[in-house]
């Protein structure tokens, strides 16, 4: 550090060595969903699990009028980056609770991105009433694989219902994410978090949904 910029006058002056900066292992996960699918809870569970595991974690939400049927995105960054946003092409993993929304978020993917998606559509209004076309499963698969590294697509909605509540799609997808082994937090940390941080009367359903997703992916 040069004298002109020495820490004496500016006591906060930080010196960060290049070594510190290179020792970084950053994982970027994007979760996309339709408002009401419990995206923010899933993200919160991952955040709490990261806190439990003492892994640096930042998340940012985009939920413009989620309760009015819009799209909800959560960007999660594990590890030693400072940003809380994921740029286009820079997600390591993309999880979608709804296939069309997974497709819409493909811009975040690169040829290494691991994509996990619920295959059960929740068509937007225009598609639900036949005013526009909802892409079929084959087109979906093709489009995703053109952009991303791998795709795991399965009916998380039915698994959630099997677990006891259709609202547990978020936990099913969390289970599948945990089973990839790519998350910096372990499945055990996530289970602990579900046990301690989700609403008491949903814990059992949530855990069951998590296991169903985990097994599906495994």
């Amino acid at each position, binding site marked *: *550090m040069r004298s*002109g*910029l020495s820490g004496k006058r*500016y*006591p*906060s*002056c*930080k*010196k*960060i*060595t*290049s070594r510190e*900066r*290179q020792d970084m292992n950053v994982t970027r996960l994007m979760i996309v969903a*339709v408002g009401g699918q419990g995206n923010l809870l899933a993200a*919160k569970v991952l*955040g709490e699990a990261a*806190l439990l595991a003492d892994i*640096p*974690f*930042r998340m*940012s*939400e*985009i*939920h*413009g*009028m989620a*309760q*009015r*049927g*819009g799209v909800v995105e959560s960007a999660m960054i594990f590890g030693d*980056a*400072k*940003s*809380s*946003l*994921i*740029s*286009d*092409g*820079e997600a390591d993993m993309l999880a979608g609770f709804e296939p*069309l*929304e997974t*497709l*819409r978020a*493909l*811009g975040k993917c*690169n040829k290494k991105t691991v994509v996990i998606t619920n295959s059960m559509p929740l*068509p*937007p*209004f*225009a*598609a*639900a*009433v*036949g005013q526009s*076309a*909802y892409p079929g499963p084959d087109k979906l698969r093709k*489009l995703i694989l053109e*952009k991303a590294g791998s795709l795991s697509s399965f009916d998380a909605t039915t698994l959630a219902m099997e677990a006891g509540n259709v609202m547990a799609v978020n936990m099913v997808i969390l289970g599948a994410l945990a089973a990839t082994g790519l998350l910096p937090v372990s499945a055990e940390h996530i289970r602990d978090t579900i046990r301690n941080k989700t609403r008491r009367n949903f814990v059992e359903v949530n855990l069951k949904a998590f296991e169903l997703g985990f097994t599906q992916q495994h």
Partner: protein
Amino acid sequence: MHKLLTDEPGKKMLLLGNEAIARGAVEAGVAVAAAYPGTPSSEISLNFFQMAQESDLYFEYSVNEKVSLEVAAAAANTGVRSMCIMKHVGLNVAADALMTLAYVGVRGGLVILVADDPSMFSSQNEQDSRYYAKLSGLAMLEPSTIDEAKEMTIRAFELSEQLEEPVLLRTTTRINHSTAVVTLAEITPPKTEGDFSRNPMRYVTVPAVSRQLHVRLLANLAKAEEMASQSPFNFFEGNGRWGIICNGVSYTYVSDAVRDLGLQEKVTILRLGFSHPLPKEMVHTFLGNCDRVLVVEEGEPVLEETVKAVAQEGGKMLPVGGKGEGLFSRLGEFNPALVRAKIASWFAIDDPLKSVTDSSAQADLPPRPPTLCAGCSHRATFHAVKKAAEEMDVIYPTDIGCYTLGMLPPLGMADFLICMGSSTGTAAGFSKTLDKKVVTFCGDSTFFHSAMAGLVNAVFNKHNFTLIILDNGTTAMTGHQPHPGVDMEKHGLSGFGRIDIEKVVKALGVGHLSVIHPFKLKKSIKALQEAFVFEGVSVVIAREICTLYGKSLKLPKMKPFFVSDKCKNHKDCIDQLGCPAFFVKEGRVNIDPDRCTGCALCAQVCPENAIRPVKK
């Protein structure tokens, strides 16, 4: 107990930026807080509202931002710590109070939180509030991260007391709506009782007093600059000769970019967290050690222009880049890859991580715009208005709230909107220059916020329009905050008055007033037609509780409806109403019973009477 009142210093907690700010205020011992809700700042006031019910904190939802600042300003001038929370456009409303409050100053710390919204995720513009710091001559702090947001909130109160001036704490959506781990510190018990010594020559801003106070403000501004140059919120990082100056979230993108581009040895970052007044000497020193400088700031070139002025004053000829062609835009929010690319370009190096994104796959996907909820009473009102005005040439100025979504097809009920409360004022203007019927909309909360003033104006100046007040019993858009028309006793909260919109409108001397229940379609159409033919100012109050709010209050549910065999597939229900409970399966219209709220609007629209309540 509210989680933000947790008294465990050292405990780590995962907090939303807005929660971290509220917690910071609590740790600082805030005693009085006031706000009009506005996203992206809404969760701060929501948390204060909740905490006030179980602590010594006084919080109020004020009728608008100007009033909220006046409340906080007076409290702070009795020596108690106060806070005022608003979104960027809210500061426009409060600006009149702000500008002269800066002259008067404060005794207890006053922090004004202003949340900007680059990219306009939930706003009508992306104005840069940093200009308000310049305009008013007040100090401004800008956090880069969530834990810093908490820390800065606490320091903002201290700074305010040191300067005896309000302090502007400026965030952007990316701070408000990001989550990270925050370490709790001790909570300072609030000092809730103030005192005030009469001193009109200090507090009553007549010209003779204000002339003195302006001198005082400028002296404080100079003092603030000295403090900015000593502040730990302004720091250098690295020791290279390529300089990067940044503020707010941009600092996080710059940090990541410098690391990803391997520029640690080449770059020095100047992070300005105490950004106004600019610590000129510090910037001068910084420029002296750089060959080339890039200013990375979202929004307007506020830092860039000041840095260039500092360079000129100091006779430095180095290139300083910021906004401009090939560099940063004034539009929208930044992201890590964008900042990395611009840094690489300005310093003429390669970006090895450059990702080529191709959005072709996304282009032709069916969109998923936000819509009025299934069972939203605004849909019924809009439909009734459309029917009532069928033969008329109408313009529909509107206002800010969920009902702005009425602009989308098939309702198409919005022609003009500039700001909160503009419904009544713009309706007056249109009625003077257009040979059309003017029908305007505003919500109940918006009515109290500022649309009411336009109505008073309309009665006085004898304008000619119909105002439809969409009274759904809450401030719905921002998450169901109360407003002066809400019966707080119903929510188990005592100590509140209640202002009846109907009585207010009557008292203003409006020539024609009716109240409709919009789910009663025929009656509503008739009442609207009567209002529309009235010459002068007519008001129709469309009263029906917000369906989402009703759900959260656990009001009894109505039976859902279904489409019977009598359906002949006219699809009037879908084409005219666009209710998201409808779907088409194998060419037939269906209603999703989980989404249908039983409002029965579609049943009244169906020409075959084919839509029936489900029998249980």
